């Protein structure tokens, strides 16, 4: 089987959702980072956008995965009534993904992670654009919290990028960036701008990195499930074998005799009824004596004719018996039914000739039959 190509729609939907998520992330962040009329952006809201919401989304996504509900961002988005008809979750997921629950879940999880990741990328792009194109002042305001309360939380958040000292928060920086809307304060714009490193590191660490890892894992899992689903359809019956037979090479064929022309003894190995014996008498003349299976056939100067059921395969018992006889003779396979004797099929005749060929000097007799 050629490598299964991921179907168009299963690629179209992630692509479309990815682009939409990128645009949404870009737009939302652009709007948010526009700040107030003085270009001030609330640092706490920024943390909410860059750290807490992405982390909560990620945890929710993992929770839904563990619960095996099959729900997630992707399924909620697909359920919106604005998509083409064949994107409808019922039609699309049931038919396109081979009806496999595991495959469906893997695909939905992958699309959800992609949407989350693209939101983050859009947001990061917007952040970089804003940083490049305008001066952003990061301030924070709170009625309840003081700088001393916030420092440990921010330092804890900044632990993953300790190797980047410029991006670490400090009490002094926090105190300098606290803002009160009523009091006229003088802020040093260059100091307030220093938060961009912290915000960038937070965005990368708590949003893009985990989402990126989840996306790669989700994609790998989906591809694995996809291959598995095709494999299970293609090779779902596994037969393990021991012992092997091959069609044996045909041995020598015995001579075929159409006439007997001499007195003979008849051994009715087939236990055939009188009409068959009469038929042989008509074709070959009456037998000097007729013996039934199991009866001892005396040594004689006459030829021995062994009547067998032509349609039955030759068996070891007959072979053993013929090998005990002192002289060669004729094997006469006949085919008959209630209507009488009928021609032996060529396949059966070949089979008997092969069998008789193992016995030195024996022939197959077919009286009255064309050669």
């Amino acid at each position: 089987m050629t490598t299964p190509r991921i179907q168009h729609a299963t690629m179209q939907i992630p692509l479309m959702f990815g682009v939409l998520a990128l645009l949404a992330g870009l737009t939302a962040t652009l709007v948010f980072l526009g700040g107030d009329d003085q270009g001030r952006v609330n640092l706490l809201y920024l943390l909410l956008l860059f750290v807490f919401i992405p982390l909560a989304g990620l945890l929710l996504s993992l929770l839904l995965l563990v619960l095996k509900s099959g729900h997630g961002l992707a399924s909620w988005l697909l359920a919106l009534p604005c998509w083409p008809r064949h994107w409808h979750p019922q039609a699309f997921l049931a038919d396109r993904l081979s009806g496999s629950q595991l495959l469906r879940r893997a695909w939905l999880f992958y699309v959800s992670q992609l949407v989350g990741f693209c939101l983050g990328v859009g947001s990061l792009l917007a952040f970089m654009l804003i940083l490049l194109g305008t001066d952003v002042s990061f301030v924070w305001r709170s009625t309840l919290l003081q700088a001393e309360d916030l420092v440990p939380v921010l330092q804890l958040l900044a632990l993953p990028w300790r190797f980047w000292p410029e991006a670490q928060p400090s009490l002094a920086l926090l105190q300098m960036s606290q803002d009160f809307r009523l009091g006229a304060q003088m802020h040093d714009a260059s100091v307030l701008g220093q938060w961009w490193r912290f915000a960038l590191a937070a965005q990368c660490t708590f949003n893009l990195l985990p989402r990126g890892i989840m996306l790669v894992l989700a994609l790998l899992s989906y591809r694995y499930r996809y291959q598995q689903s095709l494999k299970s359809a293609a090779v779902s019956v596994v037969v393990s074998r021991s012992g092997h037979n091959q069609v044996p090479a045909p041995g020598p064929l015995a001579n075929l005799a159409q006439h007997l022309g001499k007195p003979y003894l008849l051994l009715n190995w087939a236990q055939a009824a009188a009409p068959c014996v009469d038929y042989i008498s008509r074709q070959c003349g009456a037998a000097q004596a007729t013996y039934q299976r199991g009866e001892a056939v005396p040594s004689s100067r006459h030829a021995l004719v062994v009547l067998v059921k032509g349609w039955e395969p030759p068996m070891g018992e007959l072979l053993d018996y013929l090998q005990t006889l002192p002289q060669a003779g004729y094997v006469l396979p006949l085919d008959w039914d209630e209507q009488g004797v009928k021609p032996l099929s060529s396949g059966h005749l070949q089979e008997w000739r092969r069998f008789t060929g193992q016995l030195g000097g024996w022939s197959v007799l077919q009286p009255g039959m064309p050669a």
Partner: protein
Amino acid sequence: MTPVFAVVGHPNKGKSAIVATLAQDDSIAISSQSGTTRVNETLRVSIAESQYTLVDTPGFQRPTPVLAWLQAKAGSAEQRADAVASFIRDRHCQQAYPDEVQLLTPIVNGAAILYVVDGSRPYGAEYETEMEILRWTGQPSMALINPIDNDAYVEPWTQALRQYFKVVKVFNPMAADFDKRMAVLESFAHLKDDWTASLQAVVAACRQQRLAQQQASLVLLANLLTDLCSYQLRQKVLTKSQAELLRPVLEQGFFQAIKDQEAKAHTALKKLYQYHHLESDIYDLPFADNLFDTKQWIIWGLNRKQLALAAAIAGAAAGALIDVGLAGQSLLLGALGGGLLAGGSAWFGAEHIADYKIMGLPVGGYEVRQGPMGNRNFPYVLLGRFLFLAQALRQRNHARRDLLQIEEGDLAAQLDLLSTGQKKALHAAFDRLARHKTVTNLELVLQPLFTPADQGRPP
């Protein structure tokens, strides 16, 4: 506990064929020459999580002396099973009666007996010796009457076999369809209570597998259609004269690649249905003798009239969108015009196959392109060939060793069985494919053609 069945009987009565059919294994040696099976062949069949074992055995060769040996060993009924066990262990018996030792070994080890006879030939008293030996083993047993040539003697065989076997079934491994195979597997479940659940799981898995095969064949066909309808061969050259010289080479490569891809898909389809050694007489796409002889295409696809009609349906559907867009103010001219235009182009373009184009490159030199296939009948031809192969595979079983004969089918008749909506969707999808556009819901569109007969569609 894995159910194990030993398939036993006279030589050449179809034991191997029964094993091949039930195990879906087309590599088992089957021949009209008796004595093909000389040693036990054990097939452990796993489907999804369920499994069972079939043992293909040599036929009885010397039942009379074997029964005599057993009778000499066992004085009373309770000693019979032990006598059979001694028989297979006895050195002398192993040499003198190798076939009987082989066939009785799995039974002594716990396998149930499936005794096979030919229902097209008269009952013979000599079979009673074999049945008596089997009865001595004390294992659960069932008789299968295989009507090899006809069913003339099924009734007398049934009467005789009922005296020895609890269950007697008629089963022709060469002709058994899926349902008959499942019916036999289901009847195995009655032989031993311990095996009932396992065998029911096997049957359920087989049915699930059947659906999965259908779904996977749809994926194969959709991929084949999408890939081949948009397939194009390109080559960069320096001059126009080189481009002209390259034309026959590129044409040949193009058609060969199409044939190869189709053959690959057909092989994949056969493997999907577990046929690994099957030859079929489906001939190459009709390009070999005359690349442009599209008249041959009607064997598998549609004829000119049917093709024009299909195109008209697709065109009308597209035109109707314009009518809807204009809120009907176009007085259905969109549908009418679309239908006429598409139908006309199909009629007059019925002979057209694939273009050879020479394109100038901005950086100098030329690119020559062969394809993609420009004939509207092409996707129908691919469909017809794939569909008839799939139908033949579904109806075949794994005991047959003859060439798979694919009848030239009537694709138009198959399409006529679809509902109007399904037909429209199919023609519209194929219209897009013929214009080298992507069809996102191709599998859904093709699905009704693959719905098997037992789900409401004729085979």
